[in-house]
């Protein structure tokens, strides 16, 4: 597939944007101003960047519990996103959601969820809605390898297939459900094989290569938009950090971690190399993109830090459309 230069540059930009955002989150966490826990997207940036670059603005994504990258890649306002992580009134969820519910509906994010595998049924409904309302929008559902062991995986893949829904299933296989390796919980060599039973075409791609993810998603989205039904794409990737805030991920074999976390496999490095080699961007342009994004992220962090806390009694707001 010949990919336009501006798309290549966009893939680099989105991958890097997520990286810089998450590095900032990690720093803020180090300052001890991020309440609760975090599921960082560091390492998996190529997946969200590649997938979302294949979408149009009105397409929807369903996020998971590791959702920062999805939301940022879909174009979320970073001020509101970082403010949400700090629990501020100016956060996109007014401080009611935090890391696990980081969401911005106005850019087409249906929600991030703290219950693994709970997003799949919601994606089915959103795709059904797109189909019934006769839009040409598609829905992309992100979930992890661990979620593919949950009952909703079977229910939802099945329903998407029988109704030929405009839906793309993105499995982010980072090989660990918290600390449990996928090979202990899944008998097949890939998660993608599981789609066969539902007559859903599938493929496995290198999730650390945003271009490979993009190319696979473009095909899947085209099929979905044209009424051809769902596709499942397994993006193999790896967490740079542990599952959550305090997890050093010592359960991962050193050799495996060394391979995945080597500079050559790094998602930012991979896409930068491709884009430079294909002449879509110069080293100087790459630096300019980086410095522009870094400023944006730094400004967002300042905004988040300076934002006011929610008033305690706001606890009672937004349970119902009108208070009962």
């Amino acid at each position: 597939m010949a990919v336009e230069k501006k798309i290549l540059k966009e893939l680099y930009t989105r991958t890097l944007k997520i990286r810089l955002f998450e590095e900032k989150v990690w720093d803020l966490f180090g300052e001890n101003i991020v309440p609760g826990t975090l599921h960082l997207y560091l390492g998996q940036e190529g997946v969200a960047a590649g997938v979302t670059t294949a979408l149009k603005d009105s397409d929807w994504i369903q996020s998971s519990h590791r959702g920062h990258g999805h939301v940022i890649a879909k174009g979320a306002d970073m001020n509101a996103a970082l403010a949400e992580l700090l629990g501020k009134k100016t956060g996109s969820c007014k401080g009611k959601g935090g890391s696990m519910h980081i969401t911005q509906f106005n850019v087409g994010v249906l929600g991030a969820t703290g219950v693994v595998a709970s997003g799949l049924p919601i994606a089915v409904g959103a795709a059904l809605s797109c189909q019934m309302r006769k839009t040409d929008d598609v829905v992309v559902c992100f979930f992890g390898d661990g979620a593919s062991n949950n009952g909703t995986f079977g229910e939802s893949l099945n329903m998407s297939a029988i109704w030929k829904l405009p839906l793309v299933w993105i499995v982010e296989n980072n090989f660990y459900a918290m600390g449990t390796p996928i090979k202990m919980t899944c008998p097949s060599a890939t998660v993608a094989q599981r789609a066969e039973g539902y007559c859903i075409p599938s493929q496995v791609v290198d999730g650390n290569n945003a271009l490979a993810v993009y190319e696979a998603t473009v095909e899947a989205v085209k099929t979905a938009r044209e009424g051809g039904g769902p596709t499942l794409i397994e993006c193999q990737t790896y967490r740079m950090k542990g599952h959550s805030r305090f997890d050093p991920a010592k359960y991962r074999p050193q050799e495996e971690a060394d391979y995945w976390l080597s500079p050559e496999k790094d998602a930012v490095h991979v896409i930068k190399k491709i884009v430079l080699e294909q002449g879509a961007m110069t080293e100087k342009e790459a630096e300019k993109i980086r410095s522009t994004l870094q400023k944006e992220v730094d400004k967002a962090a300042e905004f988040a830090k300076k934002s006011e806390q929610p008033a305690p009694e706001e606890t009672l707001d937004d349970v119902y459309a009108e208070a009962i």
Partner: protein
Amino acid sequence: MTEMTYRDALKAGIREEMLRDERVFLLGEDIALNWGGAFKVTKGLAEEFGEERVRDTPISENTIAGAAVGAAITGMKPVAEIMFGDLIALAMDQVCNQAAKMRYMFGGQTSVPLVLRTPFGGGKNIASHHSQSLEAWFMHTPGLKIAVPAFASDVKGLIKTAIRDPDPVLFAEHKLVYDKKEEVPDDEYLIPFGQAKIRREGADVTLWGTFIMLHKALEVANELEKEGISVEIIDPRTLVPLDTKTLIDSVKKTGRLVLVTEETKTGATTAEVAAIVQEEAFDWLDAPIKRVNAPDTPVPFSPPLEDYFIPDNKRIAQAIRDIV
């Protein structure tokens, strides 16, 4: 006014809303052409509106509920049917963790205008997995509204309100009232949530209850009238929001309260109502609040066992006599 069954009144309400708003659609197991719903509530609607808007699903309760959520947050007005109330256990995550919480945990960014219809209650000798009364589970979940229509004249106005409501509504029905007949208004009418109805006026004791127990209570009240005991009967019609004013006003008038539901006793809706009344009307009570419920057991199968389980007219009458 036309005399019709609860079932037909319910169907008429759904039909009117489907005619009024093309975003309204139905999904559930065996609700369309071949069956028309296990209790025939939707019979004929697939013929009239087509199988896209009256949609049979696989046996996948969690994804039925989740698909309703996903459709609701993207512009549709789904009415999902769970064939038996007991089977909502399979959909609890989508109902209680997703539908109920989305408005709140996303800071008011979205509404979840869905209706989940399901029948509760025993009396048909279909044992522990098809007979429970589980409304208290949902009363304990902020973010849901709960309708509990017991009469044909109410069910039509309540389903129409439920479908138009911007929040998720658990629309609880009861298997033994589907065939009960009443005069139902021919013109369009909506019954606001949170308005109880005094089904019978009385002076000596207030009886608050739900579903088939209200039908039994009306018979009991007619019997006790002959003994000189005047019973006021209140149907809350919705549990969330709960009309406490009508109840408290009645208790202040009669000074006595009997609470009657088919739920198992511990943690039932009656426990909550008793607590509210002692908080708000303690000084007006002339006797302890009496509760009439099922015993704390699963619902048994054999007729003599189930007859023992479900509160009958005798038990209701005895509870009233005990405090008058």
